[in-house]
């Protein structure tokens, strides 16, 4: 599994809300740096992690940097497999439309714009975890 040069499947698991703790932001910094390594990268947002992708954040009142625009840059870094737990959304009263619309351009299809976010359920999450070579937890 650790063959030099082989591409590995890397998963970043995000389960915490933004701003209350810094994990969401510092996790995103890892993803951006990690993109340069040209591995097979996925992101999973579950539990309160789904709140990281909510649109319309305005942090002026708490005096902290709003890092949420950075998510929309992920597509440019070829990070386009973003899995969101649909049950986590539902129990929080959220729909896909409450999240940022994250897209990427597929060079194999004449740069067609495609959605990066994929809603997944319990079984798909279980599979996703099992398929990885490396999981980063924050």
């Amino acid at each position, binding site marked *: 599994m650790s063959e030099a040069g082989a591409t590995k499947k890397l998963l970043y698991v995000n389960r*915490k*809300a*933004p*701003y*209350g*703790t810094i994990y969401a932001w510092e996790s995103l910094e890892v993803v951006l740096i990690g993109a340069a390594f040209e591995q097979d990268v996925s992101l999973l947002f579950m*539990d*309160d992690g789904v*709140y990281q992708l*909510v*649109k*319309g*954040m*305005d*942090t*002026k*009142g*708490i005096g*902290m940097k*709003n890092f*949420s625009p950075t998510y929309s840059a992920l597509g440019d870094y070829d990070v386009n497999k973003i899995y969101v737990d649909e049950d986590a959304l539902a*129990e*929080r*009263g959220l729909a896909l439309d409450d999240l940022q619309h994250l897209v990427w351009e597929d060079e194999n299809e004449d740069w067609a714009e495609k959605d990066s976010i994929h809603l997944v359920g319990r079984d798909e999450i279980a599979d996703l975890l099992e398929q990885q070579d490396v999981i980063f937890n924050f």
Partner: protein
Amino acid sequence: MLHIVNKSPFATTALASCLRVAKPGSTILLIEDGVYGALDGTRNSDAMREALADRTVCVLGADAAARGVADKLLDGIDVVDYDGFVDLVAADDGVQSWL
């Protein structure tokens, strides 16, 4: 008295512990990730609606706005700023932070 909750009800049991012992007439202030406890349409909304029947529930507006959820608050929840936070602490005669 004033109860302060700074945790999401979906992540920890802090809000549930608070609601269990916060007396009628007391005030519950939701700050930081605690603001997620103030939202409508969630698994937690019924518990909060029940709290609103005989307790005052406030949310720190800056924390709700930061998280993009300021427009999703339950009816009956008061929005306060840091000045209002100070007033709540000054007005009540005790403070319990549910860390």
